[in-house]
């Protein structure tokens, strides 16, 4: 597949791969929920109604074009109004619209009923990633684009799910009513998974509701649908639907993993270890703005290479990474990354691209900082 794609890219008129995916490429997907299927049915109904009206109207028009042309000797008739005809062609469309409005209303009413959900997931849009919080489950993580930047810049062949792959899937149980609570941290985003027919804006300061109940296990991919800045096209959504028992297992594993990560913060880390880990974290969480080269995109996204923050006082550096900088695009990463990741990425920024401070920031240092801040808030 990958090979075919590359060949078809280099020969613009080779449209062969088209036929293999015709259905998915040409039309809405019927999806995997009751709602998505009713929406698909509504879509097809209104589509065929339009096709039928089009055939009649354009048919008469083209009949006139062929038969009533001057070159065939057609003489113009003189009629220019007919009340009965005009009333009829006002009432018929009205009737069609009423007939269409009834099932549309029924589907919409169902979509607006998020009652009795078995699982609540809060979805928060960030520039340019999604955060998923399983409410009442003490599980909370960010989901970032996993496609390597080299594929975007055409230095590497593109993978099958190019731009539609993330580092952590949103895992959901099938056959369970799931309620989404949507909000945003900065600008307006919109959470959309076509196979679930869920699209709802994530708006800062507001909480929107949506729900789904997935019938079939599988991986369903979507994207942010509302322009949210530079990397709007680079914040995909991946939902992994698994049977409920498997979901419980996944939940337990995810919590255990989280505990292990907290444990790892307590051991000591060498500079090399931190640099290695830090590079991974930097590429997934920081490079979108500050660039892999550390040179940024000034003035909106300043350089880190030789910057006063990255080679200056370590306390100030930790502070800005943890708490962000208000009024700019710099987010607070205290909740996005764990102490090991925070320590690693700060260490990396202080020692990469010729920033040779030689300083290693340890995870315990970060944990202490976070602990002290939490205590401060407690008081």
């Amino acid at each position, binding site marked *: 597949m990958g090979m075919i794609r590359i060949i078809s890219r280099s020969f613009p008129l080779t449209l062969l791969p088209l036929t293999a995916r015709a259905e998915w490429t*040409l039309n809405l*997907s019927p999806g995997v929920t009751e709602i998505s299927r009713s929406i698909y049915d509504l*879509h097809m109904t209104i589509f065929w109604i339009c096709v039928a009206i089009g055939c009649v109207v354009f048919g008469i*028009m083209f009949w006139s074009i062929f038969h009533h042309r001057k070159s065939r000797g057609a003489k113009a008739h003189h009629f220019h109004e007919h009340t009965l005809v005009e009333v009829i062609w006002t009432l018929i469309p009205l009737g069609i619209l009423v007939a*269409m409005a009834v099932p549309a209303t029924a589907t*919409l009413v169902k979509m607006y009923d998020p009652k009795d959900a078995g699982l609540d997931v809060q979805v928060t849009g960030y520039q340019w990633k999604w955060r998923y919080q399983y409410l009442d489950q003490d599980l909370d993580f960010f989901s970032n684009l996993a496609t390597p930047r080299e594929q975007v810049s055409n230095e590497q062949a593109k993978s099958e799910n190019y731009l539609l792959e993330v580092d952590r899937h949103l895992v959901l149980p099938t056959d369970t009513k799931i309620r989404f609570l949507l909000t945003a941290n900065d600008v307006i985003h919109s959470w959309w998974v076509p196979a679930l027919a869920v699209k709802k*804006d994530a708006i800062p300061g507001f909480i929107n509701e949506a729900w789904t109940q997935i019938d079939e296990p599988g991986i369903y991919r979507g994207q942010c649908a509302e322009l949210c800045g530079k990397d709007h096209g680079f914040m995909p959504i991946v939902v992994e639907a698994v049977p409920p028992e498997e979901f419980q297992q996944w939940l337990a594993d995810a919590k255990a993993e989280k505990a292990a990560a907290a444990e790892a913060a307590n051991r000591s880390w060498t500079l090399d270890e931190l640099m290695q880990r830090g590079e991974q974290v930097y590429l997934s969480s920081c490079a979108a703005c500050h660039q892999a080269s550390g040179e940024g995109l000034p003035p909106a996204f300043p350089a880190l290479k030789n910057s006063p923050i990255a080679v200056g006082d370590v306390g100030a550096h930790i502070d800005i990474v943890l708490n962000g900088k208000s009024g700019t695009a710099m987010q607070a990463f205290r909740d996005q990354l764990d102490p090991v990741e925070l320590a690693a990425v700060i260490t990396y920024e202080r020692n990469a691209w010729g920033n040779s401070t030689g300083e290693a920031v340890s995870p315990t240092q970060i944990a202490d900082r976070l602990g002290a801040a939490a205590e401060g808030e407690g008081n």
Partner: protein
Amino acid sequence: MAISDTTGGMDTTAGELHEEHHHGPAKGIGRWLFTTNHKDIGSLYLWFSLLMFLTGGVMALLIRAELFQPGLQLVEPGFFNQMTTMHGLIMVFGAVMPAFVGLANWMIPMMIGAPDMALPRMNNWSFWILPFAFAMLVSTLFMDGGAPNFGWTFYAPLSTTYAPPSVTYFIFAIHIMGASSIMGAINIIATILNMRAPGMTMMKLPLFVWSWLITAFLLIAVMPVLAGVVTMMLMDIHFGTSFFNAAGGGDPVLFQHVFWFFGHPEVYIMILPAFGIISQIIPTFSRKKLFGYASMVYATASIAILSFLVWAHHMFTVGLPLVGELFFMFATMLIAVPTGVKVFNWVATMFRGSLTFETPMLFAIAFVVLFTIGGFSGLMLAIAPVDFQYHDTYFVVAHFHYVLVPGAIFSIMAAVYYWLPKWTGHQLNETMGKLHFWLSFVGVNITFFPMHFIGLAGMPRRIPDYALQFADFNMVASIGAFIFGFSQLLFVWNVIQNVRSGEKATSQVWEGAEGLEWTVDSPAPYHTFSTPPKVD
């Protein structure tokens, strides 16, 4: 309608002829800077609009070139967003709207038998502030942080808290464009209501004049709302208010309500004059009176009134309450009724006519077919539950480009081809016109039809790079865009050639044409109807 007394041109008395010699156009640049002549100002608007159309078109081609293949090839995502934003703003405010005002300036006085616009000095001013507005808007491309990059709909807080510094220039430019539009609209209303020739009653007005009268009221109603919303942005950015900032107690969704209260009528501002133009052209080349004149007027007025009641159909996914969704869904579906009436009337006008297919008629027929396709996708988008799947995808991009490009833009081209012999005194070069038409027709469909497919397949709008399953149709769309874009050079060439030379046109120009504008010489004298004609 019969015209009993035609003045202007050859029929003027010797005394009036003498006067005309002294009131010809001034010489040099001063003619254009200080002109109060509706024909000069009409030409200025039209040339300006052409320049903006080409500027916005270059941006569209940059967008399509980047989207030719997956991956980033030509531009950075940040610059891509600046291109989509500027393309939209320039096409809406710089190309389509000024073109219609230019046509109104040229034709309305000649169609109603008036000597000029009612407020000629304001007319000069409403044109001449436009180049400043657009110079300011385009200059943001060279500023630190770049041009506006938040889409032509500039949703807060992306356009306020998170905007580049150039947003303030954008706000000022919008204010000037709004002032220009309001002045233009006031002028058009004053002209139509006060300066009709004796006997030219309201229900005898050519439909182009009727549709512009209704459009002008829409402009006066909604341009101040646009000015209001950008002023609220300005306050949020510079004066510490929080209209749209949730952290300060504001509401980002309020922005969208205010914007679309302007934005939806704006859509009709860009299409009602097109309806008027098509209603002039189809009867001419069908050699038959327009079918259902009165129902055309009522349908246009109904569309205008309904346009104030449907704004939130752009916002079905923001979390409106169920009742709100239902109200806006029903109101939106209702618009299909008067719009359908118009299409049926055009087809009924052609039915049993005596048709010929000169360039203006070709564009008009293409308008009816392709605008109707845009109308169909509009009807689909009105179905709120399904809109959750369509919203903010390429399906929407396909929809509004179908109503704006082969809709509004084709109607403008049809109008230019239709009235050009009257303006320049030279018959049209039909071969070039038809070549331009067919290339545009094929190009436009290759560009925008596949966008329906990639939208339904799940591609969001306003993204610089996309997943591999969208690749084939994006490539097709890009090829179409280049065909369409470059064929517009034929239009430019054709118009310039026609201005310079060509076979002498008669005052009638087209065999089946009716109306006062066809009673004056071609080219129309600098002053027409100094003495009003009498219309029976």
